[in-house]
């Protein structure tokens, strides 16, 4: 009996010690999109280096999850590449602000043995493949856009997201704009009823599945294709050019929207007009309550956002994201002033 008492006392002592050591740190939790996960993860790590007492723990569970968890307040902030719709905003217990952080691109990534050249795709072509109408790599539609490339007669395995995803939203938002059949048959949302294909979890899951499945075609945020060294195709934009995702082509996509940014920053820039524009680009947003209960966390979050909009932006190009246009940053700094920090 005595040994039991002693062990319990020792355990309690250890727990108290550990608890005490942790008491000083401010731990904040956020969850959501996998689209910006690489840069958020870099940002939170860098910010923690400069502010060791603030730990921002971000979990990439998909944009759908980010919206859900922030609405239920199980996390302090959410992140999504799909703006919340009126219904979702209404359902939240308080006003939620959309704060853009970076610009990114969704690219068609593929795994065809012996084909390492960059393939050209058009919007309607991608829609037909994802509708399940085009099933083989050597289909006439693909061959027409890619003369001189020997395409195998094998099946195309479409890889999509199994979870609620803003990346999916960006992708299908684009497909709906270029394919009326997609718009009516499948629609636009973070999670859709996919006509065909295999599901992967998060951008990581899709990239992983494509990498391991010969004949696969999926869609991922640019950095995932770059970091896993997988070939990705160029997509035909509204001006008819075949544009490859890059910092320049993505910045170009946001140019028009930046001039007419709505005050709540909720805007879609897929299939944007103009030359040198990559058609499957998007803003990504942090979702933050305007009047959160925990003011200490709100203060820390606002401070972090200001850092992200200034110093943070320089990490973007290395990771394949485009920095926000200066106009947008100015508007956003003003919007951050609205967040109640006391």
């Amino acid at each position: 009996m005595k040994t039991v008492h002693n062990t319990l006392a020792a355990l309690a002592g250890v727990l108290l010690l550990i608890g005490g050591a942790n008491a000083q740190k401010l731990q904040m939790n956020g969850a959501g999109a996998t689209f910006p996960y690489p840069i958020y993860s870099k940002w939170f790590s860098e910010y923690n280096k400069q502010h060791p007492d603030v730990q921002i723990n971000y979990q990439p569970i998909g944009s759908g999850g980010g919206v859900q968890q922030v609405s239920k307040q199980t996390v302090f902030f959410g992140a999504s590449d799909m703006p919340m719709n009126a219904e979702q905003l209404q359902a939240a217990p308080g006003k939620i602000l959309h704060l853009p952080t970076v610009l990114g691109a969704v690219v068609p990534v593929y795994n065809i043995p012996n084909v390492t050249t960059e393939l050209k795709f058009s919007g309607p072509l991608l829609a037909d493949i994802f509708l399940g109408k085009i099933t083989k790599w050597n289909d006439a539609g693909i061959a027409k856009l890619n003369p001189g490339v020997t395409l195998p007669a094998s099946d195309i395995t479409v890889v999509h997201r199994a979870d609620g995803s803003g990346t999916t939203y960006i992708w299908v938002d684009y497909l709906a704009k270029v394919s009326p059949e997609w718009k009516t048959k499948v629609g636009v949302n973070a999670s859709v009823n996919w006509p065909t294909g295999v599901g992967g979890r998060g951008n990581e899951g899709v990239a992983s599945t494509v990498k391991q499945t010969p004949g696969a075609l999926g869609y991922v945020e640019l950095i995932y294709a770059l970091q896993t060294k997988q070939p990705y195709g160029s997509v035909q934009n509204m001006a008819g050019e075949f544009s490859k995702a890059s910092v320049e082509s993505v910045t170009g996509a946001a140019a028009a929207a930046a001039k007419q940014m709505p005050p709540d920053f909720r805007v879609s820039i897929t299939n944007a007009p103009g030359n040198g524009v990559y058609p499957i680009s998007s803003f990504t947003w942090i979702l933050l309550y305007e009047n959160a209960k925990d003011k200490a966390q709100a203060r820390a979050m606002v401070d972090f956002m200001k850092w992200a909009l200034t110093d943070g932006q320089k990490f973007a190009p290395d990771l394949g994201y485009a920095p926000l246009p200066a106009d947008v940053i100015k508007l956003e700094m003003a919007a951050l002033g609205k967040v109640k920090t006391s």
Partner: protein
Amino acid sequence: MRRKELGFQMGTGVLGLVLVAIVFAIGAVLTKQSMLSIEKFGLSFWRTEVWDPVSGEFGALPFIWGTLYSSILALLISTPIALGIAVFISELCPARLRQPLVFLTELLAAIPSIVYGLWGIFVLVPAVRALETSLPDALRQLPFFSGPPLGLGMLSAALILAIMVIPFSSSVAREVLKSVPAAQREAAYALGATRFEAIRAALFFARTGIIGAIMLGFGRALGETMAVTMVIGNNPRVSLSLFAPQYTMAAVLANEFTEAADDLYLAALTEIGLVLFIITLIVNSLSRLLIWSMSRTATQVPEPVEPAVDAA
């Protein structure tokens, strides 16, 4: 003295009550959380094939199908092997080998599901893909083998489930065989039976218990999550094809639960959890009933009467 006794009984009984309460709580909480979906879809939830979060159409049929299909396939593969192991260890095995073999089967059961899943993604799925690609075209015409050879799909899921269920069914079957009275086997051998025939008699005697053991394995397969979700392809489609990526109830919960973006979606997912709870409840209760009834019959077999020995 009496009061102290009562105190002890109540004190310990209260915690037993906690256990019972937890089981009821699970059923109650799951039902409450899925109310939104139950009210909207009613019984058609179980028959609708469409799982469309965009339009708010939710039907659990693809998941029920995937769960049942993968578990039944797993049973078909694992049952003969599990029974073979049970028979070998309890009847045929030399005594020295018994302990190590039991230990090894326990080890198979103790390996975490996530480790099986990891092995599944990087070892099993490529192997299955190679197997599927090498299948002769003539067989590809059958609905069981239609579709592109992805590796990820029903076959990989069934195989991994079978591997995980084998040690479970075999250890319960072993327990069941142990409870077969020795008189049964002795009678068989006395009548000149071969090894096989004597064991067959024992198996026949224990048949309800054996079925119970197999059903317990079935119940285990129904609820298996991690290993399956990593190899099944995560596509909500009803398909006979072993090659097709499909979905199970447990897998969709793991993938979509934290990400359900609205309350109806969440309720629909919780309802799937409720369905899974009810199905495993029924399967497990039934199997325990079978095992219990078999062990009762076993103890009712009269002991052989010792012939009177003359003390001469």
